């Protein structure tokens, strides 16, 4: 306890609460603006889940049923998970790897910026993009896929998916500390795409080969998509508590790995 409080004091200058809040807000605001203005980035984050959803959910799946529910509703949960995962991994890992490798993080570390503000900004930005993706999918579903659900249920679905941004942001931070500025995007895709497939985000879980279904149990996106499906009345192969436990444990492990990277950076410089 005492060592923890010393460590905190050593990294953060004394400021009023209001001043600290201002820094966190500005850091998040500019992180968000930075990505919002990168048109290619925002377009690719949004277009993949929406294109998949339009094709499989609205064009091909309009009158189909999966696990006792209409496909347009089912796919909001799974492509929502897919979109949240992409926004969170790219929003944290790619930026962190680039900032670290190309010296920008050093400039920030040399300033009196509270270190956690930097990470918080990345996580908040990922959550905002995640929210937008889920809202777009939902709007498409309501407008063109006759998706109906009570408002409260929709809010819970949105909340679960956006909270699901946390494990993937944590994973992104860990990846950002152990990849370079050039290798980060490729590494993310190498993890993101197979993981999505193996978790049943592209092809519904029950259609996956049995071997893959076993692997899925170890995949964080599987657990998030099952929680989301649970909200809309499907999924629930296990109790939702097990999914939450898995995601919390996964988040903690990733944060631990990121912390190792953070500390390694204090000892050694790159670039």
């Amino acid at each position, binding site marked *: 306890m005492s060592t923890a409080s010393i460590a905190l004091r050593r990294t953060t200058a004394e400021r009023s609460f209001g001043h600290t809040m201002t820094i966190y807000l500005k850091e998040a605001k500019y992180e968000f603006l930075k990505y919002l203005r990168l048109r290619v980035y925002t377009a690719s984050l949004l277009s993949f889940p929406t294109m998949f959803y339009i094709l499989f959910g609205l064009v091909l799946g309009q009158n189909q049923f999966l696990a006792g529910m209409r496909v347009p509703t089912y796919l909001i949960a799974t492509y929502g998970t897919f979109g949240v995962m992409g926004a969170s991994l790219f929003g944290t890992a790619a930026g962190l790897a680039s900032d670290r490798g190309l010296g920008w993080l050093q400039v920030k570390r040399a300033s*009196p910026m509270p270190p956690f503000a930097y990470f918080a900004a990345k996580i908040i930005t990922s959550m905002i993009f995640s929210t937008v993706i889920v809202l777009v999918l939902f709007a498409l579903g309501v407008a063109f896929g006759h998706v109906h659900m009570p408002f409260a249920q929709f809010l819970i679905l949105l909340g679960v998916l956006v909270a699901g941004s946390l494990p993937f942001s944590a994973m992104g931070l860990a990846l950002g500390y152990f990849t370079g500025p050039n290798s980060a995007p490729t590494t993310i895709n190498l993890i993101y795409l197979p993981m999505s497939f193996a978790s049943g985000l592209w092809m519904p879980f029950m259609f996956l080969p049995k071997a893959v279904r076993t692997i899925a149990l170890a995949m964080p996106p599987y657990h998030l998509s099952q929680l989301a499906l649970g909200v809309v009345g499907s999924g629930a192969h296990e109790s939702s508590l097990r999914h939450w436990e898995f995601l919390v444990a996964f988040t903690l492990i990733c944060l631990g790995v990121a912390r190792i990277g953070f500390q390694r950076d204090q000892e050694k410089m790159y670039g």
Partner: protein
Amino acid sequence: MIAELELQTAGNSQLTQPTTTVASLENVNKNYEAVRALRDVNFEVRSGEIVALLGPNGAGKTTAVQLFLGLMPPNSGKVRVFGADPTNPENRMRTGAMLQVGRVPETLRVREHIDLFSSYYQKRLQLAQVLAAAGLEKLSDRKFGELSGGQKQRVLFALAICGDPDLLFLDEPTVGLDVEARRMLWDEIRRMVCRGKTVLLTTHYLQEADALADRIAVINQGEIIAQGTPAEIKAQTRGKKIRCITSISLGTIRQFPGVEEVREDREAVQIRADEAEPILRELLSRDPNLSGLEVTSAGLEEAFLALTAESKDANNGSGLN
């Protein structure tokens, strides 16, 4: 060698105002795996001065700055800034840094970058003041990615000064700047010192160190090989440089009394000697057709080359033993 120079300094210097040390490296060693980036370095920054850390690329200048900023710990020795550990967050409130950066977020505007960095500090300069000091008034709404190389450097300078720091670290601040922008930055650095600030800058431009610094520390291969005012460093290489076009052979010139070094320099010969006059008499009497005569004092460049060559020799020597 350093001790010798410092004794000399004590004798010569008329600027012996009482000054306090604001930052120091004491017996600092820093290694990157097998590479010894800094070897037993002793160096201090005194309040109100501009001190230049001068050396070729790879000499250890950036490493020294990173240690002062608490971005990494030394392997041994002590780093102090304002009498405390450099990672002390209160120190960071009082220091500003301009580092060499590969990529800065490109989609943010100049004023947005400044707004964010200013927010970190307790006391901060007005945006207009920062923009004026860095010569960015007309570029305030530009996105960083739309700026030229020199303009980008000026933004980094703006971020370094926006918190009105007492101590400023500038790592190769004028790399990539054109002559005009470089002079503007020099003026701004001088103005900082007039306002009671302290500046440590690293450079591999001798001219920059000479023009700006109150004190220069020459660093080469991780070692500080000389410290002193620009005049004192220059005094390390006494004598004059003579350049002329002549038919007299190099061998003959070498025999003249007082000649230290003779070498060919394109169509001319270049002679280094303690005193110019005796050599000039000999040259002119022997070669009536001699032309293109120039006599200059040996400058910082010669001193620097002589110093770094000496330290290389010393290292090679010790390598053989």
